[in-house]
């Protein structure tokens, strides 16, 4: 199967998405199909982990080994998979609530370990599945079922957060530009290490007018057009600071050559074996028998 050519259809499961008609996540799903096909990942060698949310339903719509786990835990789930089998291509995905609210504590630790995982957040600035509560990236002032007098807390800035964690691949896209998004996801999958992509994926049911595709298109600018140098971290911070105001699409920051988790683990195994190698059955004898 290696060397085969895959098409979108190879990644499409028989489950029909139950997203609202027009939901941005349809677009993200299709970009993921395309990106996987472009990279040529055999579906059975793909593990796709998510949390809970509308967006987190996404693994079920693919032919991957999917896991729609619990709210907020897609990243440690994905790391567990990758640790157990570094040969698998591993994707993690979910919503802004899943990723930056309940799951927010896992991001910087995923980054620290740098597993070769691509993490796609479908950032719709709202809790979709639970029907429209303000979320961590909701714009201040928004009136929602939990902020009836207008949201007062300032939003989380996912780009800044992930950049500040030291991530080697940080990108921003949106469903207004599926081609660009596909490329970005493809690049993320190919990137050796932890790749983060924040995708503005509109919630047509609970989202604000300003966050819908049409508006996204209007305010979007391509980083490529701005001659942004993705190796310039301070420039990346500057761009990231604009999150939610401007929509700069593309790779904000990229640094290659960071040690991957699997490499770290292989090195540890090498060191350990060098320090002493013996059969499993002798473990008590070697370690605990007095002599």
């Amino acid at each position, binding site marked *: *199967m290696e060397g085969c050519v895959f098409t979108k259809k190879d990644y499409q*499961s028989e*489950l029909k998405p139950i997203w609202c008609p027009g939901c941005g996540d349809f677009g993200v799903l299709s970009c993921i199909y395309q990106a996987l096909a472009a990279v040529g990942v*055999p*579906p*059975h*060698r793909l*593990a796709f*982990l998510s949390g*809970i949310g509308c967006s987190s339903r996404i*693994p*079920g719509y693919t*032919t*991957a*080994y*999917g*896991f*729609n*786990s*619990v709210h907020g*835990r897609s*990243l*440690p*789930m*994905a*790391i*567990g*998979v*990758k*640790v*157990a*089998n570094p*040969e*698998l291509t591993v994707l993690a995905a979910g919503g802004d609530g899943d990723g930056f609210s309940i799951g927010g*504590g*896992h991001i910087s*630790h995923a980054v620290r*370990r740098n597993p070769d995982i691509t993490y796609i957040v479908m950032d719709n600035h709202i809790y979709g599945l639970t029907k429209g509560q303000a979320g961590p990236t909701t714009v201040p002032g928004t009136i929602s079922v939990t902020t009836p007098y207008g949201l007062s807390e300032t939003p989380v800035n996912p780009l800044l957060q992930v950049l500040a964690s030291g991530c080697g691949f940080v990108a921003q896209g949106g469903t207004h530009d599926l081609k660009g998004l596909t490329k970005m996801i493809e690049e993320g999958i190919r990137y050796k290490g932890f790749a983060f992509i924040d995708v503005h994926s509109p919630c047509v049911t609970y989202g604000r007018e300003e966050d819908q595709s049409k508006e996204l298109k209007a305010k979007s600018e391509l980083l490529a057009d701005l001659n942004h140098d993705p190796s310039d971290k301070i420039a990346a911070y500057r761009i990231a600071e604009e999150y939610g105001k401007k929509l700069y699409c593309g790779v904000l920051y990229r640094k290659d050559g960071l040690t991957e988790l699997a490499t770290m*683990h292989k090195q*540890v*195994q090498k*060191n*350990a*074996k060098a*320090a*002493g*190698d*013996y059969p*499993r*059955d*002798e*473990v*008590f*004898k070697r*370690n*605990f*028998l*007095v*002599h």
Partner: protein
Amino acid sequence: MKVKTLAVAMVGSGGDGVVTSGDMVLNAVAEEGLYAIAGKSFGPQIRGGESSMRVRVSTTPVDNTGSGLDYLIVLNWRDYHRFSGELNMAENGVIFCEADPKVAMEGVPPGIKAKEVVPVEFQKLADAAGAKRAKNVLTIGILSALANIRKERFLSSLDKKFTKKGPEVLEMNRNAYNAGYSLAKSLRKETWPELEYAPSAPKMITDANYAVAAAAAAAGLQVFAGYPITPSTEVMQWLAVNLPRFGGTVVQAEDEIAAMAMVCGASFAGAKAMTTTSGPGMSLKAELIGMASIAELPLVIVNVQRGGPSTGLPTKGEQADLNQALYSAHGDAPRPVLAAYDVLSAVRLTFEAFNLAETYQTPVVLLTDAFMALGKQVCELPDLANKKLYPVSYRKVPTAEELKAGYSRYKRYADGISPMSIPGTEGGSYLASGIEHDEVGRPISDATLHHVMNAKRIEKLQPIRKRADLVLTFGDADAKDALIAWGGSVGPAREAMEILKAQGKKTKLLVPLLVAPLPTESFKAFLKGVERLGVIELNYQGQLAAYLRTELDLPKATHAIHRSGGAVWQPQELVGRIKETVLAN
């Protein structure tokens, strides 16, 4: 007086080397081929501060630290008070204590319970032996003479330990040892107990944390994820050093939830996976334990129980997490629960935990506690090569035909066990989830199908009840007075039973290594003809006793014998409790 078992202890300050002494005694004992069990206690300080160590030596295997001390060495009376509850003396117990009040901080407390109190100027004696900084070795000399453990053994240990530090250091330590030995020999009386034994093959020394860690490695553990927490951290620490030797991986997670999620992911990916923690971490894992249940993930969770609730008593053992082990997580999510009572049972049950997990595709909880995790035991080496004693199971994966026929992850077979396809297998892709699902794995919300899937998951575990080998019984099979004990209460309960027997009271004891699903038939067989029953455990509420009632008709005269943890049961304490309850009229 010649005896077969004997308990000694030492208490002192940070600088007194109490812990090192304890380790040296244990080592000598193990080399002599004796058995032993040891416990340590510390003050709340991270470094320095008071500490006590306690060793019980025996010519036969021993799994509890006993009732009273035969010999206690007090280097410092002020430190003694913190541990006084743990340092009670046997009826004939003898205390050696520092005579110099400047060193001892305080004088002998009035009304101290011991047959004899022998004040000795340990420090001055050490100084006199030219061993100013080897007071602890001097006390070892004393203990060795009192307990009658061969001098040669200690001297050769000192050789091994100090030769590399140069002849002067070695000489100093030998002198200290000899000074203590001679002193004790000269003071000891005929009526004082001393061991009678013949040296035999050396034994191993370990604790339940290392036992679990090493057994897991031997049972095929591939991915371990954990987060430090007292008293479980040593499992992770041992594995961090050793698991990579066997090609396995240890991840220190950012918290217990992440650790549990990693283990779930690893299991999904096909690996044998384990996490260890203590109560607070166990509470955090509840949600994902439920997910492992509904997604049918094989994995092992070890809870090294400490005193609770909440942060509780982090360095002390308790058996108060049974309810949590059985019932945490929302929904109907039962899981097998195993309970070890000493090092060797921990080894065996670690294998069982993996085997049950893999065979039944379920999370399995293994309970140990702080006492066995932090206190060392000298015992027989487990023969891991014997695959009858230590079998290793693997999960069922789909056959090529099953894959070809169209794979359904949760297909219902008669035994409820569906083959689990491993990512990377062509034709075996599926969606795992914590959402209720049909046989294929598709999300559903239909009540009838939900019931069917609940039934699949819960009924598949029922055959485990038949594991009569995971129920131990001791004592007179036809006794009408019976005891049940679990976990850390087993050793003391067994000894209490023996003491009662010596007093002419016939009892028997059942020990459930497997607590859930309850091996009801084994219990029923045991309870047949039993008129009075005591259920022994170390928690405030009597959690096992309550749980047993949910599954069994217990005798009318059933007594829950329990108290909070923080200190182990002493067999004599249990004898008293049993007499007041089970054996009272």
